[in-house]
């Protein structure tokens, strides 16, 4: 288990605050964020042979039995049933209530007493101290009243408050676990077992023990535990957790499967190709666990408020009793004080932020988006400016031929000769040429004596005459002549930011090929979607201004800053930041790590290692730029829910506190409303899991057209950029 493992609740997977409780249940170390989770967990895992769960339920059942009898009798008392002729019964009934209340108090109150005691020994006062104090006072007063023969006894209040608190926290914890159900598979991966198929015998082994070459069996409905190749069986898998896109992918013998993908409909035997603990899936799970166990700023704030509020409430409770006891009998004043303590119990406040952020993190992770911590969601939701790096982010970083200007030769001949040379080269531009030739089914012309001249080009011989492809300078070195019109074309293309390859043979330059970086097909739609979300989109790039402007025009970015060194990019981010705007920076994560780290939210596409290096705070799946608007929507919704939760929790507590101090709110009612308030937060937070899955913005179409977008013979200038986009 990772180091963060100790900080998540065993039941609801929420981070455990300072008040975490540890129990050993059935020989297993469990930690819980609250008492409710402790109960709910035991109920959930409870089996008859397991003593803990049964014992817990018996205790509650008996506690409830006693409490209900107390309440029953008390309600009859209030209704005046034992008035008049039956009044002689009263002292006996009081004694009976005492007899019921004492075990009920011990049974139901024990966890609260214990927590108060443990925390008090460490010099802390927690919310359970409020309950203990209030309930204890009501009980003690009632005991005296019973002995003195007074009529005002509040055993019902004391036990009922305990009962409702227990019940409320149980219901809340059950709801929370239901809400966090989505997180379970994400957290389970590390402890997950794979079914090892070995000569017909199947054994369960932890995923981390799986070594390459082992064969595991994956049943329908299970997650594929390892990366591997199918050796037997046919099925469909859903790789949403890796690619972000939820669709069925057919798998048969020989198909590769990714760890973490869901096997949908048929049993598979998979030969493992990598160590079980080294998959991206395992990495996702680790990062989710880490993200959950870090507290967001707003959560820390809420926790601090809770910490401060407990002593304040204690004082307020005391003051309330003191104030009211001047005008009304002491027992009534005490009851009002109890209501104050109960109603101010800040359970809901502690729940407001973590539930929404946890759900948000889990929601993103299930679509392959990894978040570093809860604070990232908050920052992402409040982002105003989103800056893009160009190469590798908006573009694929793989150039392709977008135009060929030729003179005295056909395009096919140009490509055939150039490809004959370039196929011997590993250069990125060279690959674009061979790809273009291959795409048009042009057979390269055999060339001999090929020599690459670094930084200039490549030359060789075909049929006895020299052939060359490379820069203009290279052509001059070789003494090839260049027609002025072609030279003019080449110069204008270079000025516009294209890469240009001259192709020449027989002592003369025959063609100029212009190459451009390939735009990601979904880049434009993504930028548009981001705009619709009200974000300001800017392009920060180290490329030359013409190229940057052209790409920007293609995707629809107006704000372009080109020719920036990494330092200058950081300065640009700092300028936005200085204007109190939260800036997100999107990069490929390979060469712009420091810049991403400098942004408020560094977003890397497809490079999860950045998460570990803390340069990026959000990592999108590979080729997952399109998912960014959705991720921002999720973050915003989570943030909205967190805020509304906090407002509700604080607002409710304040209003209820005022009502209680005014003596309007009955303690039992206060406890009931308290529990329902927590439940409301759970339901509100659950809205987060209703966000639909991300959908590709538009059909990606042809990913990277290798065909030149235009081919012109002779000379002429025509803008080609727009055409390239429209095809994308």
């Amino acid at each position, binding site marked *: 288990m990772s180091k963060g493992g100790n900080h998540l609740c065993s039941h609801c997977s929420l981070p455990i605050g300072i008040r975490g409780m540890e129990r050993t249940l059935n020989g297993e170390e469990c930690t819980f964020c609250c008492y409710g989770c402790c109960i709910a967990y035991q*109920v959930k895992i*409870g089996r008859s042979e397991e003593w803990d769960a049964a*014992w817990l*339920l*018996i205790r509650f059942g008996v506690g409830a039995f006693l409490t209900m009898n107390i309440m029953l009798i008390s*309600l009859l008392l209030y*209704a005046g049933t034992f008035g008049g002729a039956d009044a002689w019964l009263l002292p006996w009934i009081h004694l009976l209530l005492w007899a019921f209340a004492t075990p009920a108090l011990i049974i139901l109150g024990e966890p609260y007493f214990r927590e108060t005691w443990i925390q008090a020994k460490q010099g802390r006062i927690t919310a359970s101290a409020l309950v203990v104090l209030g309930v204890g006072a009501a009980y003690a007063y009632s005991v005296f009243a019973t002995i003195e023969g007074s009529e005002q006894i509040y055993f019902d209040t004391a036990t009922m408050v305990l009962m409702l608190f227990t019940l409320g926290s149980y219901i809340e914890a059950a709801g929370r676990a239901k809400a966090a159900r989505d997180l379970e598979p994400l957290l389970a991966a590390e402890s997950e077992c794979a079914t090892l198929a070995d000569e017909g015998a199947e054994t369960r082994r932890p995923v981390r023990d799986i070594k390459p070459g082992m064969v595991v069996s994956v049943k329908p409905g299970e997650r594929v535990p390892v990366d591997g190749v199918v050796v037997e069986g046919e099925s469909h898998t859903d790789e949403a957790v890796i690619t972000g896109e939820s669709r069925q992918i057919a798998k048969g013998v020989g198909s590769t499967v990714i760890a973490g993908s869901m096997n949908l409909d048929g049993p598979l035997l998979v030969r493992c190709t990598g160590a079980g603990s080294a998959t991206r899936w395992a990495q996702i799970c680790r990062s989710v666990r880490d993200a959950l166990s870090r507290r967001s700023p707003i959560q820390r704030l809420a926790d601090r408020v809770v910490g401060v509020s407990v002593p304040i409430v204690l004082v307020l409770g005391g003051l309330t009793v003191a104030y009211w006891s001047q005008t009304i009998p002491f027992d009534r004043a005490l009851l009002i004080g109890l209501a104050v303590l109960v109603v101010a119990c800040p359970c809901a406040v502690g729940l407001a932020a973590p539930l929404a952020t946890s759900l948000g993190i889990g929601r993103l992770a299930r679509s392959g988006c990894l978040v570093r911590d809860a604070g990232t969601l908050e920052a992402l939701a409040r982002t105003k400016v989103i800056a893009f790096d160009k190469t590798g982010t908006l573009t694929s970083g793989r150039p392709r031929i977008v135009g060929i200007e030729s003179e005295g030769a056909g395009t096919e001949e140009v490509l055939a000769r150039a490809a004959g040379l370039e196929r011997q080269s590993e250069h990125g531009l060279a690959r674009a040429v061979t790809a273009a030739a291959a795409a048009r089914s042009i057979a390269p012309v055999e060339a001999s004596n090929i020599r690459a001249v670094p930084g200039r080009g490549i030359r060789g011989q075909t049929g006895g005459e020299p052939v060359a492809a490379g820069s203009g300078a290279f052509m001059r070195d070789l003494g090839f002549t260049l027609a002025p019109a072609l030279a003019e074309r080449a110069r204008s293309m270079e000025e516009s930011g294209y890469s240009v390859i001259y192709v020449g043979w027989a002592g003369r330059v025959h063609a100029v090929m212009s190459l451009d970086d390939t735009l990601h097909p979904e880049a434009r739609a993504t930028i548009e979607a981001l705009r619709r979300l009200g974000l300001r989109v800017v392009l920060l790039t180290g490329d030359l201004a013409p190229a940057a402007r052209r790409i920007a025009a293609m995707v629809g970015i107006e704000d372009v800053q080109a020719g920036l060194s990494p330092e200058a990019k950081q300065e640009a981010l700092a300028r936005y930041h200085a204007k109190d705007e939260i800036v997100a920076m999107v990069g490929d994560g390979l060469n712009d790590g420091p810049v991403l780290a400098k942004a408020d939210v560094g977003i890397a596409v497809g490079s999860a290692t950045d998460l570990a290096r803390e340069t990026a705070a959000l990592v999108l799946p590979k080729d997952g730029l399109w998912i960014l608007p959705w991720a921002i929507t999720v973050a915003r919704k989570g943030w909205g829910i967190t805020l509304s939760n906090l407002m509700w929790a604080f607002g409710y507590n304040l209003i209820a506190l005022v009502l209680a101090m005014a003596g309007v709110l009955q303690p039992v009612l206060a406890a009931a409303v308290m529990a329902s308030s927590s439940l409301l937060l759970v339901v509100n937070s659950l809205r987060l899991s209703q966000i639909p899955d991300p959908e590709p913005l538009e059909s990606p179409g042809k990913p990277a057209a290798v065909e030149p977008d235009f081919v012109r013979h002779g000379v002429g200038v025509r803008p080609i950029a727009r055409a390239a986009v429209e095809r994308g």
Partner: protein
Amino acid sequence: MSYYLVIFAAGFAGSFHCIGMCGGFACALGRDPRGRAVTAERHLLYNTGRLTSYCFMGVLAGALGEAVASSHGMGNPLQNTPLDTAQRLLAIAAGLLMIVMGLQFFGLLQSFHRVVNIGFGGTTLAATFRNLLSSESRAAPIAFGVFNGFLPCPLVYAFVAQAASTAASLTGFLVMLAFGLGTFPAMLMMGGLGQVLTPVWRQRGVWLAGSFILVLGIITLGRGLLPLDSHMAHAFAPGSG
């Protein structure tokens, strides 16, 4: 008194309906190998727990009804008749609810039951409770009975509605006490009876219970709708018992 006898009878008839769900629990409680006395004790404790839950709900419903009824007409002694407007409205609501529940016993209005059944982890809880039964602890049956009392059951809801319509905590308590006691015989004997009773008879019991609830619902509705001095309304009013 006759009023409570009717409810007792309805509880008795209705308890044949219980055989389906709660009877399973009672059977699971089963025979204790330590002897007949221990077995009897376990079943008695279980039913006491159940009865307590019912009575608690009855008192609460009665008190709630009282609160609703007395929140109107307060401070005006002339209006403070047993059947003022609020109480009439309460009776109408409870009566309608009971009629709906009663019809359910005849297989009508099934969807309503589904609405009622939506809860937090209800099935998990029920399963866990069932496991509770195999616990050796003496207190387990009582705890189980308490939880059992709160499991969703249209029969119980119907009588809680009836309890609320009486608009007093004592009468509410008595309604649920009578109902709960009515379910005692069948549930106590469940171990043997469950097997002996043919499905046909069980179905008849359910219909009988449905009829009782339907009639009670109509009477309760009548208490709300009919003029003050109506003979029928008074004949079955809890005050006359």
